[in-house]
């Protein structure tokens, strides 16, 4: 078996991130506390390089490398670029918060970058083993990051819950993978798909394996009834970490679901469709209803995530090219919106004070009209009000499920989104209709303002011209 060095070209983006993460660990040893900003700058430069490299090596025919373990295709190109871009914004937003709380250490940045690497591996995996490794890399980094502020008891508690439940989810997934391996004799998606096409439902082990996979995916997405960790982790973790784990990983989780269910077990579509219907309906319903009851905005956003996951599942369960493209669009758009919303929360926080309650939004329009406008359009977008992109995402998903004849599901989805509209409106009401309770200055910098503006305006621009992103999503499943 010879090793061809050209095989490494498609995985150059991952190599860049890996080198970056390791470099940061080393550099951190040599810089003084006052100069920790260098970690931040290095990370941003590295991410930009990684985006450029991804674009360079991307495009063209599907390539399978490393003995069939790894794939680079249109789907992976788009998703990786999106993960990297969203992560770039995440780091820009986090800087002031981390600096003020002396968290901006090399460890933080390298853990976060390893998490990014984990996402990229998930996106490009071509076998059950690779995808599991990517997932664990991501998850382990996130567990550590949730507890990163070691002074915080809430953080430690959240990390503990996250770890135990996450490990349970991973265990389920692994168990499912083992069954599928037993039934098909392969770990690569291609051969598995062939066997599934032959045997189909006759093989009971396969169906059991599928059930465990869906449970695992449900855990990782945070879909009801596997959502228990989401609100606690969102509430307990430091806001920059919530920002990190609430945005880009949704894109990676989408990749996980597509690779596992569609690439590997596409032949069992009829089976997993039914399971996803249940998860989707429960997630949309429970997520939206419970979000109304929250006064902590991080918890509210946690439940809102759960509701959005339900919508992503709607697209996935359609299983058609159209549906998958819609789900992909939704996942990307959600990551962009979530990044913006948590970015605003970071702006509202300041040294010694974390903006966590809905009340903290009060009177934002008087304190800074531009941030209020950005947050407002993000909230309208999440509620699915046009002309913002959140509407387009919902529209594409609804269209795809109406196309497969599940009109009742579409009706149910819109009913839940009406319920959901209330809590987004409440955030806007606090910002615009109430007077500020504090006149403390906002924590931002020129870079944050520019980044948040780009983030917010992209929500509007993509809503007006959804074709820009939609064509990429459609190309990924063509």
């Amino acid at each position, binding site marked *: 078996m010879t090793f061809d060095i050209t095989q490494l070209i498609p995985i150059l983006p991952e190599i860049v991130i890996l080198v970056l993460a390791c470099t940061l660990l080393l550099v951190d040893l040599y810089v003084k506390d006052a100069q920790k900003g260098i970690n931040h700058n290095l990370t941003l430069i590295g991410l930009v390089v990684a985006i450029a490299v991804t674009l360079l090596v991307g495009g063209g025919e599907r390539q399978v490398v490393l003995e069939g373990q790894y794939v680079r295709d249109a789907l992976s190109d788009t998703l990786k670029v999106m993960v990297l871009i969203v992560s770039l914004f995440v780091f820009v937003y986090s800087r002031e918060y981390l600096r003020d709380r002396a968290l901006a250490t090399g460890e933080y940045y390298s853990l976060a970058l390893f998490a990014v690497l984990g996402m990229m591996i998930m996106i490009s995996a071509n076998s059950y083993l690779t995808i599991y490794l990517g997932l664990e890399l991501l998850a382990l980094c996130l567990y550590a990051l949730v507890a990163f502020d070691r002074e915080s008891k809430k953080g430690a508690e959240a990390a503990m819950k996250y770890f135990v439940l996450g490990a349970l989810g991973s265990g389920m997934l692994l168990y499912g993978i083992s069954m599928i391996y037993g039934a098909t004799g392969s770990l690569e998606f291609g051969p598995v798909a062939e066997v599934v096409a032959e045997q189909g439902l006759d093989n009971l082990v396969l169906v059991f394996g599928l059930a465990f996979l869906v449970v695992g995916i449900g855990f990782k997405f945070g879909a009801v009834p596997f959502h228990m960790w989401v609100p606690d982790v969102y509430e307990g973790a430091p806001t920059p970490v919530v920002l990190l784990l609430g945005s880009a990983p949704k894109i990676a989780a989408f990749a996980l679901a597509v690779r596992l269910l569609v690439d590997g077990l596409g032949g069992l579509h009829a089976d997993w469709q039914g399971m996803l219907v249940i998860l989707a309906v429960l997630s949309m319903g429970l997520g939206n209803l419970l979000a109304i009851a929250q006064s902590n905005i991080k918890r509210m956003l946690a439940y809102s995530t759960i509701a959005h996951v339900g919508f992503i599942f709607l697209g996935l369960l359609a299983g058609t090219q159209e549906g998958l493209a819609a789900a992909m669009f939704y996942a990307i758009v959600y990551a962009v919106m979530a990044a913006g919303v948590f970015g605003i929360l970071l702006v509202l926080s300041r040294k010694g004070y974390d903006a966590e309650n809905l009340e903290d939004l009060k009177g934002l329009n008087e304190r800074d*009209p531009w941030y209020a406008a950005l947050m407002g359009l993000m909230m*309208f977008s999440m509620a699915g*009000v*046009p*002309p913002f992109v959140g*509407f387009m995402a919902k*529209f*594409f998903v*609804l*269209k795809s499920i*109406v*196309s497969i004849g599940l*009109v009742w599901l*579409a*009706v149910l989805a*819109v*009913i839940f*989104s*009406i319920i959901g*509209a*209330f809590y987004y*409106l*409440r955030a*806007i*009401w606090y910002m*615009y*209709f109430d007077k500020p309770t504090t006149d403390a200055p906002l924590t931002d910098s020129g870079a944050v303002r520019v980044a948040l503006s780009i983030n917010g305006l992209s929500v509007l621009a993509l809503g007006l011209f*959804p*074709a820009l992103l*939609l*064509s990429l999503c*459609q190309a990924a499943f063509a």
Partner: protein
Amino acid sequence: MHIDLPLLSLVIWLPILGGIAVLASGDRAAELSKKVALAFAVLTFVVSLPLWFAFDSSTAQMQFVERIPWIPGLEVYYHLGVDGISMPLILLTTFTTIFVIVAGWEVITYKPSHYMAAFLIMEGLMVGVFSALDAILFYVFWEAMLIPMFIIIGVWGGPNRIYATIKFFLYTFFGSVFMLVALIYMAFQAESFSILDFHALPLGLTEQILIFVAFLLAFAVKVPMWPVHTWLPDAHVEAPTGGSVILAAIMLKIGGYGFLRFSLPITPDASSYLDWLIISMSLIAIVYIAFVALVQQDMKKLIAYSSIAHMGFVTLGFFIAFTIFQRADVETGAVMGIQGGMVQMISHGFISGALFLCVGVLYDRLHSRQIGDYGGVINTMPVFGGLMVFFAMANAGLPGTSGFVGEFLVILAAFKADFWFAFLAATTLIIGAAYTLWLVKRVVFGPVANDGVAGLTDINARERFVLGSLAAAVLIVGVWPAPLLEVMDVTVQNLVEHIGLSKL
């Protein structure tokens, strides 16, 4: 002559861009931004005038059509066009917005530039609703319109504004999402999002009924029809004057327009099957809501309820067509009913807008909307008193005013359908006169009630301009409605022919 210019796009985007410009200028130079806002409003009105003058009223085809791909792959187009139904409503929108901007000139002191900008953006979106011929484009404008209104009521509204604005938003949002599902469903059947393709789409009765109900939820809330009208009095009372004017004059019309553009032509059989439902809801609105209006103590609430009753005429006029079709002995009348409904919409736009502005004039001076706080206003404000009496008369349907034309046509058409429909509808002439005249008696006439009223100053040049222009519009349409009827005549006839054919 101007056909080459994308007129409709201009009328949509000019105010929106103007709004953004005003918003960006902020309140540092509030006077200047008000002037810019007014300039954009006037310019938009001027740009919209060719729609009327270059309009070819001999055809029912869509005119000033623009069509470019918007979301390729999903067959969604940026598709605009107007016919005799939508064109007058667009002019109503551009016309009314000018007065809303002028009316807020001195009154709004909190972030005036944002206030003006919200109305300009709103104007563009409403024109978009009337001119969109693509279902998704329509829906985007339709929903986006909620955002500025939500902000307007919530920021510049009265003490109970938050309750009112959330109720307004959720109510309308509730209505419209079902419409979205219906639109997507039809697009799936027709493989196109063009509203004109939906018109030609064959649908079974069950499908039609479900689609009809989805549309009904959206449009009935917007009109609003009894029993989903309860958001309107709240929203009107709490909204600032300009917000009430836009709500009453244009937003309600969008519901009526929706019936004509969607419900009737897309689901004619379901409309025919369920016309009893709409007709009874309309009659209840006309009779019952008019009685509710009678007992109101708050002037804005009274006018809000009167709006609901008047909009009942609109929906009645649209749906009696089906009763007329079923009667073998009657041949004409359907066109008259729909035309009456249309005229009623335009006229109600002027009259209710003007009445809300009148209440605004009083409110700006004494900060009360309670009828009991006034009395004998005419002694201190003779010009204003005269105008208010005039608008009240128009509201009661006095011949010679625009209010008469619409009601008369609808009642006449209702006679052809069923005597009792006409009888019930005609009771409005009595009850409507009762509540408006009683309002005028208590507020305008009589001896000066208190020191507040005694200290009132008459309306200034700005207010004279606003109310005077609207009074002129009411008179012109009332005395000489022929041009308005002519513009919509062919379109309405075509519509009646279309809905007379079964899709089954």
